[in-house]
């Protein structure tokens, strides 16, 4: 059963990989219908935060709450989370269409084909829909990855550098899709280095440095 939530909050969130402290006690909350952009230098802990929120890693210390639910309800929460990771998490031997249909079946979406077709049109995937992903450019594969993250109409949408490799037209499509998700009440968290893209989508911008939230440099 898919669980619903209106807010995501983290308290004292800490993650270390051996001696390396990736996140050092982060406290944050994200509410429905908002877009939060997280910026920071490489290794500042932005992507780690997304991985923890996607429940692909466990915190060393601290807690994540999805509304009233904790990560112990992961099976019900996963169906409400969409994640565009930096590595695109697609099977290169399958076409974009097959990758999306596999994700739709695993998400148990009854109207999979229609939803996939709608996203295909929104992201202009049509030209290379049936070609193996390994023949795609980075931007084309990125669009399939974004479509996969949106397929199941997630409540929490996590995007790690979603505009990487996209041309101006595709970037505009992604901005439109993020706006649409926000209108639909999703919690959107975007990690990006691209200032223009950030300014187009952000309701609030956070900065991270060495695993902590910091004030932006003047």
């Amino acid at each position, binding site marked *: 059963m898919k669980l619903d939530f209106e807010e995501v909050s983290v308290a004292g969130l800490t993650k270390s990989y051996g001696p390396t402290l990736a996140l050092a006690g982060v406290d944050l909350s994200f509410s429905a219908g908002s877009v939060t952009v997280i910026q920071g230098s490489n290794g500042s802990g932005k992507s780690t935060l997304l991985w923890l929120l996607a429940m692909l890693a466990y915190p060393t210390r601290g807690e994540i709450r999805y509304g009233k639910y904790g990560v112990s309800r992961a099976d019900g929460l996963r169906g409400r989370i969409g994640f565009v990771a930096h*590595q695109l998490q697609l099977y290169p031997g*399958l076409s974009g269409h097959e990758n999306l249909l596999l994700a739709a079946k695993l998400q148990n979406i009854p109207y999979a084909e229609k939803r996939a077709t709608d996203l295909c049109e929104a992201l202009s995937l049509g030209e290379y829909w049936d070609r193996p992903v390994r023949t795609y450019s980075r931007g084309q594969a990125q669009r399939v990855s974004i479509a996969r993250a949106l397929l199941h109409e997630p409540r929490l949408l996590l995007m790690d550098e979603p505009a990487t490799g996209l041309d101006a037209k595709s970037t505009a499509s992604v901005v439109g899709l993020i706006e649409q998700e926000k209108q639909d009440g999703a919690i959107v968290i975007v990690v990006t280095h691209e200032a223009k893209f950030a300014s187009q989508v952000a309701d609030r911008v956070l900065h991270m440095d060495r695993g902590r939230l910091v004030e932006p440099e003047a």
Partner: protein
Amino acid sequence: MSTLRAALLVALKDLQLEVRTKEILTSTGLFAVLVVTLGSLAFYTDPVSSPNVAPGVLWISILFCGILLIGRSWALERENDAVFGLLLAPIPRASIYIGKTISALVLLFVIELLLVPLCLIFFQIEASGIMLPLLALIFLGSVGFVSTASLFSAVGIRTRARDLMLSVLVFPLVAPALLASAVATRELFAGATTAEILGWMRILTAFDLLFVGFGVWVSRHLLSET
């Protein structure tokens, strides 16, 4: 979604990829033919002693092909971090392990369908009357081996030393099943009846149940944080 349905989706995805690329079957199949051919040329002496040698060649081929095949199957999951696409889905973690094990077994059976006749021909072993118990032995031996190797491949998906770990940990663990399979096959080739090798089959069945059960139980935790 039920564990079995999700496992079938994962397995079908693997088989679809293989039908598309034929990468695993081509490389592993050629390797299998090479091992059996080399084994038959190097060890063949006469029709009397060949039934003693053939089981070793057959099971060494299955072991090496299985390791190659399973390694390649999990490498597909590492490419582009695709396994995380599965881990993001609201499916039981064990279904990923079960699905990968099913697809590896299907592919290994295809290779074995090539290996067994080759082995029987090269070592001049009379096939009549032994095919059914031989296939049953191969099935039982393969299930134990593949379930164990898949489990350690799942463990090692984010480990740099995965190949070393696979070889160092899997070979000793599957040794009892492989030894039982090889000895039972030797007895069968030497003229034993199905009833006479039933004890070996029971040992293999127990091993399979133990390792499949252990794999399903452990994989829930192993794949939770990779």
